């Protein structure tokens, strides 16, 4: 708990700084439009009136933090959960494809890593392609995946999940290749003296040794999955999901909606990383890890 208290003050100070800066920018960026409005209405505002107006525009260039907070609160807690304006509903839509894609991606990443570690040919042939796959901009690939899968009759959750898979298998593959190769020479020699089979060495030594690497890479992968799910919602004309909210907000200049959807996305990402982190710590404890 001491580490929590040690972090609380620095993190809060940064947060306060960001909020102050945000207000300054909100006034600064919304002021030209507000002056324009005042001129047309033949009004003259004092400086403090101007500031008040810039922070309460219905479609501001940069919404003020309290506008985002109010919008976020209303759309999270005051709407029925099955309403498509509810952020909980939209977050759930995105979360479900994130989790499906993450599960696929983790499984795929592990399978590829096992192949690379055990088959020398795969190590040389597959690894460059896997690295190349991540240099392709996902925004360019996403619409193609959606269109191609729609052509063969696959729509809905799975195409979005595929994009999450595409982004999340990579960190898992890299982490697990490293993890499965992490046993010390001495441990491998020990297994050799027991005349252990390759399968026994795999299950009794390589797999347990790779577990910390798996959870570290899964933390990266789950965040990437969420990005994938949001990106996957953009070209599909999806009606629900955080990506759909972002797109709709952009169409109708609902900047406050965009920002509160962003906040919702960040919270989901933070929660996902936290859950994976906690799962990792529980597994570590169960495997006799030394308490930190």
């Amino acid at each position, binding site marked *: 708990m001491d580490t929590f208290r040690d972090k609380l003050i620095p993190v809060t100070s940064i947060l306060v700084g960001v909020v102050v800066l945000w207000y300054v920018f909100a006034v600064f960026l919304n002021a030209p439009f507000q002056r324009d409005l005042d001129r047309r209405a033949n009004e003259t505002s004092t400086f403090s009136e101007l500031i008040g107006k810039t922070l309460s525009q219905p479609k501001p260039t940069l919404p003020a933090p309290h506008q985002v907070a109010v919008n976020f609160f209303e759309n999270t807690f005051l709407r029925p959960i099955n309403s498509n304006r509810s952020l909980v509903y939209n977050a759930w839509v995105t979360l479900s494809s994130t989790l499906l894609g993450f599960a696929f991606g983790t499984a795929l990443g592990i399978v590829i890593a096992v192949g690379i570690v055990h088959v020398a040919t795969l190590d040389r042939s597959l690894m460059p392609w896997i690295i190349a796959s991540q240099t392709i901009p996902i925004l360019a690939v996403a619409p193609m995946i959606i269109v191609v899968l729609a052509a063969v009759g696959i729509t809905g959750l799975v195409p979005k999940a595929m994009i999450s898979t595409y982004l999340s298998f990579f960190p898992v593959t890299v982490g697990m290749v490293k993890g499965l190769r992490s046993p010390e020479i001495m*441990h491998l020699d*020990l297994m*050799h*003296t*027991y*005349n252990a089979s390759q399968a026994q060495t795999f299950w*009794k030594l390589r797999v347990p040794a790779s577990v910390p690497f798996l959870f570290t890479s899964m933390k990266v992968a789950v965040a990437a999955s969420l990005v994938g799910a949001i990106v996957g919602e953009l070209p599909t004309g999806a009606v629900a999901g955080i990506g759909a909210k972002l797109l709709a907000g952009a169409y109708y200049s609902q900047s406050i909606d965009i920002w509160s959807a962003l906040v919702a996305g960040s919270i989901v990402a933070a929660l996902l990383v936290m859950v994976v982190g906690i799962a990792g710590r529980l597994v570590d404890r169960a495997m*006799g*890890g030394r308490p930190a």
Partner: protein
Amino acid sequence: MTGISPAVVSASKLGLTFQTNDGPVQALSNVDLTIGKGEFVSFIGPSGCGKTTLLRVIADLEKPTSGAISINGMTAEQAREKRAYGYVFQAAALFPWRTIERNVALPLEIMGLSRAEQAERIKRTLDLVNLSGFEKKYPWQLSGGMQQRASIARALAFDADLLLMDEPFGALDEIVRDHLNEQLLELWGRTNKTICFVTHSIPEAVYLSTRIVVMSPRPGRVSDVIESTLPKERPLGIRETPEFLAIAARVRDGLRAGHSYDD
């Protein structure tokens, strides 16, 4: 005494040359050696003399490039496949995610023994190294000396008659080391195993062994073999007796003759 008992380890004209980027390195050259059943043989020499390499050749962790080696009349590979020896490394090399009893169970699981048989052997070998009561502890909860005892228990668990030990107490302080040496001798006396023990400590070699193989570097070879005249019963105090010191002096002479003290 080696004449009557059957040979457990027998090496003739054994040589091993590593191919490195800087050219070939001769780690072992022309090693002739016979170790009889129940012997406690120490290999002593400076680093680079090939003593660990020789132990690894016996264990089939390295392949010799010339000469021949047989363990219990088999090739080293056959002996390894039959789990003819237990190997104790310089570090305890316990799996950190397994408790002490599960670590000892590792070779038993690999050999496919039943749960009941495993439990019985775990209990027996942990008793043997005085670690009863620590079954459920994880390695990090034990001191370095206790961890090394657990790794000895693991090497004993599957009842191999040959124990290969590669500087097992090298990383421990002298007080713990004395204590473990005493316990190891007692264990050897009770189990009648054949032990090959690599060390770079002269007192340790003299205190433990029935025979001391002195090795010298560049290329690694046997420069002297010294039979110990000490009795089988050896209290720690024996290290102050003239007989003990005489053997230690012979070992030191052997090391000097092999140019072990040159640089």
